[in-house]
């Protein structure tokens, strides 16, 4: 009798346990969506038994504290950048392309907030140029050659990607005249040819022919503008300055060893060496007169002011230049510790705006300097590490 009772009680217990198991299995509703992953308890105080470390005390930056006028914008190396501002009253952003990946980021200059706006990976991205409005970008990947096909992308910010088109030519120098218009050079039998490619119509129009190969091309703002061309510089070889306007080649009165040059609306600024001494001259296009400057100016270190046609912003660190200049700077054998100068191209007066080393405590060798369309800042990379910097004007 006792044995029978025990068996019945055992069966009842088993049935009860099964019932609990079935209930838990089928009717107990939890928020867990993926098997194998468990949400860690939050710190709302409802989950007992979990020790949550106190949140770190983060002192928010004082929004009223003045920010340095010279500041580093990225820690990543960059290959192309542009200032973007929809209208004069809108916030100013800086967009840049990361070296190696081609990912595009946007920095809100007011808040310093950085957002990735394209995660489209461009393998070995090495050179990039934005359209003036920053909505499109052309990127060339690195090879052992000086050229490669060109990938052009319209930035789709919401989808965080690029809508791309590939220009299959071997592209050397290139620029974006607008979101849909690209200028580039490629090799031909007689030298280099510059084309204007329209992304909307897929039309390709020849702009001009350069009758040699080792050309440094500085495109104008639009395809119809004057484009400055000279043989790549070397201290041991003579260079000559040319412009191409509507396909017509014109020789300008500037020549010399190690010749480099840049164009401004009313002047041509060129640097050359004579007896192993570099010197910079400013040529007035109207009066056809030229004068020497006290500073040695390289096109990569200068930006023409967009608001004042006769003003250039240039970087130069007063130092003894090597005999092989500018070759050694291009090789990365010789470096500057730059100051930024404001230069009046009419009077040739130069005023030092900032000594970047004194200001930042870091050696800065300025490269690829541009003036933002807003007229409020200069942007450049530091040749020491290719990071992006800003100097507020």
């Amino acid at each position, binding site marked *: 009798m006792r044995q029978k009772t025990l068996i019945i009680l055992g069966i009842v217990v088993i049935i009860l346990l099964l019932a609990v198991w079935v209930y838990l299995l089928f009717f107990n509703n939890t928020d867990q969506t993926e098997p194998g992953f468990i949400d860690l308890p939050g710190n709302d105080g409802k989950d007992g038994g979990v020790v949550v470390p106190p949140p770190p005390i983060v002192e928010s930056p004082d929004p009223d504290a003045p920010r340095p006028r010279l500041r580093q914008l990225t820690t990543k190396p960059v290959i192309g950048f542009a200032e973007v501002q929809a209208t004069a009253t809108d916030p100013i952003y800086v967009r840049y392309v990361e070296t190696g990946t081609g990912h595009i980021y946007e920095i809100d200059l007011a808040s310093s907030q950085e957002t990735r706006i394209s995660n489209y990976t461009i393998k070995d991205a090495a050179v990039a140029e934005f359209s003036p409005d920053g909505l499109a970008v052309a990127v060339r990947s690195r090879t052992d050659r000086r050229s490669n096909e060109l990938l052009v992308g319209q930035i789709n910010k919401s989808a965080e990607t690029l809508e791309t088109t590939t220009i299959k030519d071997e592209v050397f120098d290139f620029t974006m005249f607008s979101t849909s218009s690209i200028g580039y050079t490629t090799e031909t039998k007689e030298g280099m040819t510059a084309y204007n490619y329209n992304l909307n119509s897929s039309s390709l129009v020849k702009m001009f022919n350069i009758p040699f190969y080792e050309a440094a091309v500085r495109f104008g703002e639009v395809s119809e503008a004057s484009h400055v061309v000279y043989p790549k510089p070397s201290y041991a070889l003579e260079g000559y300055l*040319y412009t191409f306007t509507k396909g017509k080649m014109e020789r300008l009165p500037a020549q010399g060893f190690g010749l480099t040059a840049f164009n401004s609306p009313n002047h041509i600024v060129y640097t050359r060496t004579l007896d192993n001494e570099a010197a910079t001259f400013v040529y007035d296009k109207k009066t056809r007169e030229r004068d020497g400057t006290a500073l040695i100016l390289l096109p990569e270190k200068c930006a023409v002011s967009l608001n004042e046609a006769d003003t250039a912003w240039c970087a130069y660190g007063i130092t003894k230049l090597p005999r092989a200049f500018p070759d050694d700077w291009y090789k990365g054998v010789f470096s500057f510790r730059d100051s930024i100068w404001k230069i009046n191209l009419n009077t040739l007066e130069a005023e030092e705006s900032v000594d970047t080393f004194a200001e930042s405590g870091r050696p800065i060798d300025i490269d690829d300097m541009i003036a933002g369309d807003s007229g409020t800042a200069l942007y450049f990379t530091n040749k020491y590490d290719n990071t992006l910097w800003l100097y507020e004007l």
Partner: protein
Amino acid sequence: MRFSLLLLILTFFYAAPVALAQSSLIYGDSSLTIDLDPPFPGPDMEFTATANDYAFPLQVNTMRWFYNGVAIEDALNARQISTSTREAGAKINLKLVVETASGESFTVERTINPVYLDIIIEPQTRTPAFYRGRALPSLESNVNVTALINAGNPPSSELLFTWQLNGRTLERGTIRGNNTITFPMPRGLYANLGLEVKDINGVTIAKRIINLTKVEPELEFYEFNQLYGIIERSVGSSLELLGSGIALRAEPYYLDLATYNRPDFLEWKINGTKYQGDFNNPYEISLAAEDSGGSSQIGFHVRNTKQVLQGVERELTVSVRPGGQ
């Protein structure tokens, strides 16, 4: 005997100019000329004009200079004047009027057509893809040269070109439209390259001689990152390794392209021991730091064994702090 010898020497020195003067007189007008320095001034260029009346047989009392028909007032009776050309293609008429003691007037004119004669040198030697400068010629590397007159105006097809290299005429003489030329860089510190350009009538419109400097190949080491690519700052002759390792690339400058692409000899050495470079690119090497620290000599050597001057080698000291600190 001694007197006779002296007389003979004096006669020779005295007679030579006389003979020249007499020969000049044979050509009449050439007895009074305007000489230019430089002989073919380019646009916007200062030059000197000299009255060459050495062979003029008459006593000159007055000299007057005219620039495009306008008298140069401060050049009255000057045998030499300095002036300048204007833009390319803007011809200048330089006129010299001399008056003799007897009141006779003689005129000589010279038209100067300033043109740009650009000689663009493009040596076919190796430089890295990131390098924004021009390659330089090393021994026996090919050199491409292009000549441009006034940026192609007139076109080269309407001109005659005569090239000379170290005094030797290239292409066997003058050729119409031949504004490009290629030659291997000769031995010596310099190559002397000359070019004379004539119009279709055979009149010389420009002439230049340039010295082309030969360089030795150079070698720089750069840090290479698989993601970011080459870091465009030469590491120089010493490098302190801060991380666990580094990839280095040896970049020879000005090495002949054939030697770079198919080197007879290419070798990395670490503390004197031969080492294999990267499988995909023999100009690269990957180095790992040891915890014990210390320093190592990294050497790289590339050479053409048939032309031993086409090569370069260099060493680099890489140091590591103990424990990788």
